[in-house]
C-alpha cells in the first residue's frame, strides 16, 4: 500500500486506521480485488444487449437463452497460485469459478481451461503441465462438473509465469436469479461450508498483485502458504446445499468467499444493499486455534459461501445444510446504515469480538468494496516495436513444408482424456474441436431443445505485434469457432492476462487490447458481460506477451442432431469459404503465425480483414450448420475453421480425424498455406454445385480447393504426406514432448 492510499483511508475514516482496518483495506484495495489499474479502461467495453440479464460487476454475467432458461458465465485466472503449486493452484481455480456461478443461482454445467506454459523442453514446464492438468482433473471430475474444452499454448514467454484460466458456464430457471446483496435490517449472514484456516492468507495481495520479481521467481517457497488447498467433496455438498436453499426460496442474497475471503463477501454484500453489517469473528468456525481477527477476515480457505437469510428461516436452512453435511453458522447481522454529517446513509462493516462485544474495526463497507483509488497509469507504446514490425517473416526461406506442417500438429487428447467431459448427458461436441456444443439441459431446468456453444480463444503472438488488432481478430476467430457448431455468438467474457501495469508498455498493451475488443464487439453487436484482469504476470522483470483470453457463449435454437464435425467422405468436394485474402499490403500475412514463430521469427505485421464479408460468411456458415443440427438434410459433410497453422494445418487436422486423404490444387502463394487470419472455413460437400449456389445467393466468397479421398494429403507441389503419418504424428506429439528426458 502506498502513502497516498494510506492518506485516503485516513480521510475516509477521519482518523488513523488500526492494524486490522489497515489489513482489510490492504486486501480489498489490492490490484486483484479493486481493478484499480484497469477499471478506467474497462469502461470502454460495450456491455449491454436486450438479452443481457446481468452484466459486469456481479459474480457472473447472465443472459436470457430463451425457453425460460438463463445462462451464467464467468472466467477467472489462477495464474500465480498455479505457478507455485500447480495441482492445488489449478484445483482451487476450478472450485472458485464454480462458486461464482452457483452464487447466481445457476447449476454449474461445464468448465473450460485455457492453459499457457513455457516450452516442454524445460523439465519444470513438464512438471507444471502434469500438475495443472491433474489438479483440474482431480477437482473437476470429483465435484461433478464436466470439463468440455479449453486451449493449450506453449511459448517461452510463459516459462516463469504460466497462465491457468478457467471458465464456467451454468444455467438456471430465469426466475431463480439471485444477486450478492445484503438486505433487511435484522437479517442474518450465514457462513456455509468449510471451517476457516490459515491457508490462502494474502492470496490476492501477496500472490495475485505482485510479480515473481525475486531471483527465486515462482520457486520462492515463502509464497507457498498463500496458495489455498481445495476439497472437491466439500464443494460438491456445498453446491447441492446452496441450490436446494435457493430452490426453497430461503436465500435473499448469496456471495461466494473467494479472493480476500470474509472481508470481501461481507463488505460487497453490504455495499450493494446499502446496509451495515456486524460480523462476529469469534463465531467463525476455525480450523486451528489461535487465529487472530485479521487472519479470520482475510483467509482464502476454500469451499465457503455467505448467505443472507431471515431469522425465521434459520432452522430450515440448518436442516437442509445438515442433510448435506454442510456447516452453517450465523456470523453476521444486517444492521441500519449510519447517517453521516451530510445526511447520507453509510453502511458500516463492523468487526466485533462477540456480537455484543468490543468493536475491533469499523469502516464504511462501500469504501472497501467500491472506493479503492483508480489509477490512470502511464501508457507508452514501446519504441522497440517498430523494429519488430519491420522484421516480417515473408522473407523466411521456404524449407521443408512437409516437416513444417507435421511440426504444427498437436492433438490435445492427452489433456482432455483426463477430464470428465460428458457428465449431465449434454455434450454433443466435446474437447478438441472448433467449439464445444452442449444441450441446454440440466437438473431442475425447463425442457428445451436449444443448445449452447462455447469457445475460449487467445492469440498472444498476434497481440504481441499489435494488441489492438490482435485482440479484435481473436474475437472474430472465436465467433468463427462457434459458427462451426451452428451457434450464434451472444456474449463475451474476458480474462485479460498482462504483465506489470507499472510498466508503461504493459499499460499501453492493456489499453490497446481493450480498444480492440471494443472495436470487434461493437462491429458484431456483442456485449462483454464479465471478466477478470490478471496483472503482474512477469518473472525476473520480463512481462509475458499480452494474452487477452476471450470466452464466447453462443446459442443454437434447435439441437436434435450433431453438427457435421471434421469427418469428410471420399469423393466429397473441398471448398474454402470466406474471403480469401486479407486487406492491405500482405494478402497472406505470416507475422504472428505459428509457422513463423516456430522458425524463431516473431516479428512482422498483421493484416486487417473485411469485417462485412466476415459477418456474411459467419452468418452463412451458422445457417448451414444450424440447419443440420435442426435435423435437416444437407450436402455439407465437414466444417472446420482455419486458424493456427493456416489452411495447411486445418486440412491436416481433418485428415487425421477422418482418416481419409485429400487432393488439393496448388494454392496462390506459398504463404497462403500457413497464413493465419479469421473468417475462413474449410467445408466438405457432397454436392459442390448446390453448395456454390447457396454461397453465391448469400453473397459469400468461396473457392474450390480439391477433392477428398485416397491415403495421402497432397497440396499442389508443396505438401505430400500419408494419412497415417499425419494421424500418428498429431496423436503422439504431446506425449512425446512430455516424456522427454527429465
Amino acid at each position, binding site marked *: 500500500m502506498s502513502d497516498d492510499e494510506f492518506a485516503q483511508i485516513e480521510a475516509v475514516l477521519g482518523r488513523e486506521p488500526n492494524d486490522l482496518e489497515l489489513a482489510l483495506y490492504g486486501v480489498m484495495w489490492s490490484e486483484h480485488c479493486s481493478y484499480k489499474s484497469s477499471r478506467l479502461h474497462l469502461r470502454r467495453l460495450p456491455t449491454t444487449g436486450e438479452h443481457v440479464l446481468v452484466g459486469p460487476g456481479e459474480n457472473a454475467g447472465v443472459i436470457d437463452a430463451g425457453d425460460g432458461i438463463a445462462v451464467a458465465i464467468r472466467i477467472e485466472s489462477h495464474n500465480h497460485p498455479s505457478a507455485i503449486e500447480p495441482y492445488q493452484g489449478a484445483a482451487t481455480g476450478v472450485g472458485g469459478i464454480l462458486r461464482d456461478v452457483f452464487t447466481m443461482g445457476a447449476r454449474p454445467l461445464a468448465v473450460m481451461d485455457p492453459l499457457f506454459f513455457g516450452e516442454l523442453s524445460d523439465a519444470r514446464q513438464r512438471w507444471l503441465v502434469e500438475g495443472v492438468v491433474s489438479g483440474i482433473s482431480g477437482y473437476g471430475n*470429483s465435484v461433478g462438473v464436466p470439463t468440455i474444452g479449453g486451449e493449450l499454448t506453449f511459448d517461452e514467454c510463459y516459462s516463469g509465469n504460466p497462465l491457468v484460466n478457467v471458465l464456467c458456464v451454468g444455467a438456471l430457471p430465469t426466475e431463480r436469479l439471485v444477486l450478492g446483496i445484503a438486505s433487511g435490517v435484522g437479517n442474518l449472514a450465514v457462513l456455509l461450508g468449510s471451517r476457516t484456516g490459515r491457508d490462502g492468507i494474502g492470496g490476492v495481495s501477496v500472490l495475485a498483485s505482485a510479480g515473481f520479481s525475486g531471483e527465486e521467481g515462482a520457486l520462492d517457497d515463502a509464497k507457498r502458504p498463500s496458495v489455498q488447498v481445495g476439497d472437491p*467433496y466439500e464443494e*460438491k*455438498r456445498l453446491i447441492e446445499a446452496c441450490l436446494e436453499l435457493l430452490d426453497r426460496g430461503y436465500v435473499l442474497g448469496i456471495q461466494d468467499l473467494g479472493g480476500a475471503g470474509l472481508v470481501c463477501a461481507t463488505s460487497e454484500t453490504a455495499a450493494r444493499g446499502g446496509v451495515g453489517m456486524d460480523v462476529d469473528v469469534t463465531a467463525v468456525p476455525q480450523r486451528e486455534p489461535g487465529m487472530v481477527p485479521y487472519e479470520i477476515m482475510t483467509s482464502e480457505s476454500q469451499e465457503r459461501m455467505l448467505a443472507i437469510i431471515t431469522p425465521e428461516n434459520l432452522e430450515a436452512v440448518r436442516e437442509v445444510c445438515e442433510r448435506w453435511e454442510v456447516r452453517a453458522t450465523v456470523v453476521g447481522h444486517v444492521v441500519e446504515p449510519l447517517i453521516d454529517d451530510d445526511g447520507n446513509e453509510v453502511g458500516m462493516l463492523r468487526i466485533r469480538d462477540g456480537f455484543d462485544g468490543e468493536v475491533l474495526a469499523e469502516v464504511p463497507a462501500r469504501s472497501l468494496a467500491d472506493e479503492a483509488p483508480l489509477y490512470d497509469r502511464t501508457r507508452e507504446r514501446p519504441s522497440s516495436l517498430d523494429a519488430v514490425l519491420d522484421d516480417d517473416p515473408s522473407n523466411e526461406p521456404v524449407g521443408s513444408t512437409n516437416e513444417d506442417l507435421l511440426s504444427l500438429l498437436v492433438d490435445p487428447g492427452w489433456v482432455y482424456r483426463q*477430464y*470428465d467431459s*460428458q457428465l449431465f*448427458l449434454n455434450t454433443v461436441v466435446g474437447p478438441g474441436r472448433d467449439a464445444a456444443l452442449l444441450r441446454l439441459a440440466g437438473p431442475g431446468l425447463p425442457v428445451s431443445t436449444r443448445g449452447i456453444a462455447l469457445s475460449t480463444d487467445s492469440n498472444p503472438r498476434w497481440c504481441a505485434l499489435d494488441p489492438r488488432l490482435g485482440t479484435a481478430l481473436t474475437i472474430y476467430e472465436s465467433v468463427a469457432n462457434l459458427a462451426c457448431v451452428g451457434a450464434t455468438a451472444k456474449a463475451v467474457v474476458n480474462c485479460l492476462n498482462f504483465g506489470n501495469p507499472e510498466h508503461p508498455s504493459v499499460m499501453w498493451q492493456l489499453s490497446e487490447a481493450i480498444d480492440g475488443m471494443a472495436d470487434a464487439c461493437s462491429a458484431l453487436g456483442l456485449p462483454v458481460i464479465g471478466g477478470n484482469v490478471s496483472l503482474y504476470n512477469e518473472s525476473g522483470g520480463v512481462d509475458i506477451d499480452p494474452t487477452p483470453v476471450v470466452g464466447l457463449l453462443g446459442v443454437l435454437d434447435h439441437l436434435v442432431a*450433431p453438427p457435421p464435425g471434421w469427418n469428410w467422405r471420399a469423393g466429397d468436394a473441398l471448398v474454402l469459404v470466406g474471403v480469401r485474402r486479407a486487406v492491405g499490403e500482405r494478402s497472406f500475412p505470416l507475422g504472428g503465425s505459428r509457422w513463423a514463430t516456430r522458425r524463431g521469427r516473431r516479428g512482422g505485421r498483421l493484416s486487417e480483414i473485411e469485417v462485412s464479408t466476415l459477418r456474411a460468411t459467419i452468418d452463412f456458415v451458422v445457417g448451414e450448420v444450424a440447419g443440420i443440427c435442426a435435423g435437416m438434410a444437407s450436402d455439407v459433410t465437414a466444417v472446420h475453421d482455419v486458424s493456427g497453422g493456416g489452411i495447411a494445418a486445418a486440412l491436416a487436422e481433418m485428415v487425421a480425424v477422418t482418416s481419409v486423404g485429400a487432393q488439393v490444387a496448388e494454392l496462390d502463394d506459398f504463404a497462403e498455406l500457413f497464413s493465419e487470419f479469421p473468417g475462413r472455413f474449410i467445408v466438405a460437400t457432397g454436392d459442390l454445385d448446390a453448395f456454390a449456389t447457396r454461397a453465391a445467393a448469400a453473397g459469400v466468397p468461396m473457392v474450390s480447393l480439391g477433392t477428398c479421398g485416397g491415403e495421402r494429403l497432397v497440396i499442389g507441389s508443396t505438401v505430400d504426406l500419408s494419412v497415417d503419418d499425419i494421424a500418428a504424428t498429431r496423436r503422439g506429439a504431446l506425449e512425446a514432448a512430455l516424456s522427454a528426458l527429465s
Partner: protein
Amino acid sequence: MTRIAVVVFPGSNCEYDALTGVESLGADAELVWHSTKDLSGFDGVILPGGFAHGDYLRPGALARFSPVMDAVARFAEDGGAVLGICNGFQVLTEAGLLPGALQKNAGLKFLCQPTTLTVTSTDSILTANATLGQELVIPINHFSGAYVCDDETLARLEGSGQIILRYVENPNGSRGNIAGLANERGNVVGLMPHPERAMSTLLGSADGRVLLESFVAPRVRA
C-alpha cells in the same frame, strides 16, 4: 411400470444421468438418499457413478458403511436387480456383493473416452436383451477402473459365465479385459463403463440402451 431407486451418496454425481437414462426407457425412477434403510417397493436399484463420500480412503470404502447398503444387500438376496455403474461397481466390490476389486488404471491417469465392449454373457439382468458377441461402444470415465481378482476367482468367473462385458482394447489394465461382471445369480451386476452416457446418437452412441432396457425390463425375481 418398473420402479427403480437411484441411490445418492454425498459425493455421487451421475445420479441424474442414471435417472434420466432409465426414465427415457419408461421406468419410474426416484432418487433415494443413502440414509434410507428400506428399498421395498422397488424393482431395481442403481448405485450411480461419482465419488461417494469423496472417495476418501479409497473408492467405495466408506460408502459400504452407508445405512442403505444393508438394504441393498437384503434387496439383492431377495433376488432384486442391483446395478453398480463406475463408482457404484467399486461400492459393490467393497461391500462384498461382487468379487474382486478395482485398482488405479494402469497408466495412473483418469480416463474419459469411448471404449468398445463385447457382450460375453447374457445371463444377467444387464445383458439379457443383448446378443452374445455383440459389440457396444460405451464411454468410460474413471481413475480406478482396473479390475483385479485372484486366479481362483478369475477361473470361477470365467467358468460360470459371470463375466458379462469385456473391453476389445483394454484401456486400464483390467484383468481378463473385464469391463463388467455379475454375481452367480445374475441379479447383481457392476460395470465401469457408463451405459447411461450412451443412450442417444446425438451424444455419440445409443449402444447403452440395450443394457438399460434389460435392466428395466419387468421380470420375475430369480
